[in-house]
């Protein structure tokens, strides 16, 4: 008889709104404590101190409109947040400040999360949904200059972009963008030419979330149907389906591959978090705690593998923190873990 699945290590309550996005920042040295940023549907961003398990700061900058993407940029002092008031704000959190120093108007009314990629010291690329419905815009940060606008050809009609993932095969090489669209297809864009490299129709329903493992050139996507699809990118830059997994209940809101590429977590509309082995998509655990749809999952970037956490934010206003599959042999982890996608 297999072990019963574990309970959450702890639960963060008090957002008093649905939690839409989570982002860890645990990389700092002592005396910095690990932080979890959470964005919720009432427009607030909570900064959680994971040591005391209390809210440190509450940031209010989206005018009460739902926040659906947060990501730390340049350490813990700078934070990007995207809200449905069509603003992407840059926060300055250093030395106790909490002010919006800059912002970008997205002109897009969807809820596609942006994606950030560090391309050089002090330079980032940010992909965000563009002005037209099916358009993705890539900006250079901090200058906010537009690098390119990725618009499918008129007859392609993939619908709106639903999720984005910027990545580059090696640090410094030409970045690519993977985007999941409303019609269920995943498109690989070449940023330098603004061209579609490959298009894979892997779902019948809109792609809700995707994540990509740039080492193995293998990604995973979840949609509102009951299938989880793993696809791979071959040498000719073609996407093809590698494996699908049928779920018991439909709807994946978020997928996340852990930085060590060992496990994959999905946030299910069926209130459950599922853990799979990344290599063969072997189902490993069903984490059952939430009483409503789980909106997001995120793995912490703790430098020590044994401290690594999984956080899940749900419609039931709670953030559950889990400690799972992090007690394996450490040496292997560290070598795999040296490079992580930003």
């Amino acid at each position: 008889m297999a072990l019963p699945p574990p309970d959450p290590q702890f639960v963060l309550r008090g957002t008093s709104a649905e939690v839409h996005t989570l982002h860890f920042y645990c990389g700092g040295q002592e005396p910095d404590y690990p932080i979890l940023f959470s964005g919720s549907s009432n427009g607030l961003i909570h900064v959680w101190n994971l040591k005391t398990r209390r809210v440190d700061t509450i940031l209010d900058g989206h005018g009460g409109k739902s926040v659906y993407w947060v990501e730390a940029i340049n350490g813990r002092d700078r934070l990007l947040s995207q809200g449905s008031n069509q603003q992407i704000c840059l926060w300055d959190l250093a030395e106790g400040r909490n002010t919006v120093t800059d912002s970008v108007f997205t002109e897009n009314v969807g809820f596609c999360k942006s994606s950030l990629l560090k391309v050089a010291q002090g330079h980032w690329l940010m992909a965000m949904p563009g002005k037209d419905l099916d358009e993705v815009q890539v900006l250079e940060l901090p200058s906010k200059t537009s690098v390119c606008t990725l618009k499918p050809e008129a007859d392609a009609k993939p619908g709106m972009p639903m999720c984005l993932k910027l990545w580059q095969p090696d640090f410094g090489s030409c970045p690519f963008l993977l985007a999941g669209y409303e019609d269920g297809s995943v498109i690989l864009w070449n940023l330098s030419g603004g061209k579609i490299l490959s298009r894979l129709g892997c779902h019948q329903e809109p792609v809700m979330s995707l994540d990509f493992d740039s080492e193995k050139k293998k990604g995973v996507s979840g949609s509102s149907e009951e299938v989880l699809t793993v696809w791979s990118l071959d040498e000719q830059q073609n996407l093809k389906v590698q494996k699908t997994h049928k779920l018991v209940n439909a709807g994946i809101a978020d997928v996340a591959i852990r930085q060590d590429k060992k496990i994959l977590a999905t946030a299910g509309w069926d209130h459950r978090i599922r853990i799979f082995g990344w290599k063969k998509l072997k189902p490993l655990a069903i984490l059952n705690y939430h009483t409503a749809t789980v909106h997001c999952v995120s793995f912490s970037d703790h430098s020590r593998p044994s401290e690594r956490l999984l956080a899940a934010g749900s419609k039931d206003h709670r953030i559950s923190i889990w400690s799972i599959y992090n007690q394996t042999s450490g040496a292997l982890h560290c070598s795999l873990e040296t490079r992580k996608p930003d």
Partner: protein
Amino acid sequence: MDPEPFEVGHVVREAINILSSSRNGVQISEALGTIKCYLGGTENQAPLKEREEFTRVHFSAFLRGLVSNLSPDWIELLTSDQQKELWDSFFLEGPADQVFLVLLDSIISMGPSFCLMKVISILEQFLQTGGMSALMWEVCHQQAQAGLPTFQETLLNKVVCLPDHLCNKLQGNNLPIFFPQNYFPLLATEIIQVLQRISDSLRDGLDCSISFVSQVLGKVCMHGRREEILKVLVPRLMDLTKVDCIWQRICWRLVECVPDRWIEAVVCGFVQKAPGADVLSRLLGNLVVKNKKAQFVVTQKLLLQQYSYATAVLQNLLGYLALDSLRRYLLIKVLKELLETWGSSSAVKHSPVEQQLYVSKAILICLSHLKEPEIESNGQELLTSMMGGMKCHLDSNLPRVRRLGMIVAESISSRITTDGPCLKFQYEDDDETRELKSLQQTALLQLPVTDLPNAGNDSPSATPTAVSKPSGNPHPAAPAVPEEGSDLELDSDDDLIPYDMSEDKELKKMKVPVYIRDCIEVLTGSEDMDKWEATMKVLESLIRRNSATTREVSMELAKVLLHLEEKTYIEGFVELRKRALVAVTITDAVPVVQYLTSQFYSLNYSLCQRMDILDVLALAAQELSQPQASGKNKPRSTQSPCIQTVPGSDSSQNWRRIVDERIKSKTRRLAKGQSLVEPACGPNKFSSLAGHFFFPLIQNFDRPLVTFDLLGDDHLVLGRLAHTLAILMYFAIHTVAAAAMGKSLLEFVWALRFHTDSYVRQGLLSAVSSILLSVPSERLLEDMTDEFLETQSWLADVAEKDPDGDCRRLAWQNLLLMENLLKKLRSVPS
């Protein structure tokens, strides 16, 4: 007159005289040497006639003379070479039967002395040098001419009882060779040697009788040494008969010649020892056809009267019957008799389950041996007995018996209906059913296999499935192969051990009702199955949370729940409904219990509903009687060890466990004082309600209704009632009503004590245990002395004679409890 007899007799007498009187070593050795000539084997032998004369008439007397003269100083007159040459050789080279008799006689008659030791060492040498085979050969040889029956009889006795005699004589100083575990295997090898000589002489065209060997074998088996002797004999015979038909004939003859009074022991031994049906057939031949007694043993005793043998024995036996066309009519006859037993309702009721299992196994094996034409010609008969047997098995209250009936009936029907649908029952597979089902196939496989032992038969059937599995679904493996670097990934996920994922069920998106009145509405009227299902799932927690509201509608709710039917499949529906009913009962005990107990005895309920009522009452009593922790909503764990959900299978065990724990806790308290962790305390809510639960239930059991007759057909419910009353009694410990409850429960038990159904009897015995544990012992012994004593004698009777093992165990336990009670009472005043 012939001068020789006189002459030989004279010489012998003279020699004996010299031996007894002379003190001269030379003279003695000369005398021995003279006699030695008559034995032959030396260069100067006496004439043949004289030798025969000597061995026939004088040899025993001479040996006795030798033995009687034996003393330490006498034997010293001879040199040790002479001793060996002259003294010992008479025993080791002379006619073995006479030597053996003389040796044993002298051992039996002698007290411990030098002489005894000498004789015993001679006997040891005699055994070691193959004396027994010489002896048996001698007798077989004589028999061909015509031997003396009394002489043979004595010899037989002595041969078989040698270990006993020597053990009695030597006690602690016995030699290992005379131990039964060594002697009988030795005897077996000697028997093989005799048989070898017989087969040789048969090949030479000489006649030989084997009956003495058979007698030895029979008597040894009869004396309970068949394990030791057949352990050696059967494998040897198996090898020897494999290719040689003369050996086969000898072997058949060997068994046939065993006297009738011993044949049972021999046949049983062979059946048990033979590694397969074909071997058995080789060894026994058509014995069952020729010998009535053997036929009776094989077809009746081993199958219908005894049931302790392993399945392999059954397979041997029935396979043996099936292997030869001459014996096949017996197989069919046996099957009919087995089916008759299987289908007799009295046998189902009164014989132990183990025996029923044995008979079922035998039937399944028989069926597997039958061929199509045989089944066709007996099809009608099989069908009739199947229908009858199935009925009385399904009537039984014991799930195990029911399942046996189902499996056998399924198997019969699958054999008699070659085309078209056959019977199919629903039951849960366990080890036993799997074993039974495998019997239908293995026996079929066994026939063509010629020489493999049983264990070998499983492997060919197991390997194809093992092989076909990986090849059957190449699908998951296929995509993994073309992947580059896949060899690295193959073992990659192994360190991640999956957790239990059985909870991953489909999620129902349905608004669940929040108010109890809504629930009632949904349950009574709604056609929306999803809503209905969601309601069932939340009902219990709603009831427990809103006790005030529940009280307002408790009766209505109880009525709805009791009549609720499973409109659509819900997992664990029965459990959900039961838990909800329990919750209602607990929240508003008095009226609901009154309602439930009155409904138990009213018209128009199914047996299932009545049993549900009993279950609910028992569970509610359990929960009420348990001290509740400070919180008002109890953890579910208290309910999960359900007392009585499946009839028969667990309830008595569970119940007994409770009692055992109870007893244990009592003894521990005596031994260790207050070392236990303080349990949660609280008033026993059951104490004021016990009467409401108990008395309405016990009142009307003997009043049959049109649809419900507890004392008649509905004994399953009666059994459940008895168990429930026992449970209520048990939970009523320390309550005021306990004594009154105990008294009426004892009367109830007394009225039903001879019930034919073992499940009912188990319930009654449980009830007695509860009474003993719950009723204060003073009340029990002062107010109910007569009943107590009567029950005690009934228990003693059950403990000894009841066919059901569980009943016997329960009765013993009760007797023990009574004993303890009495002991405690006696110790109190002093």
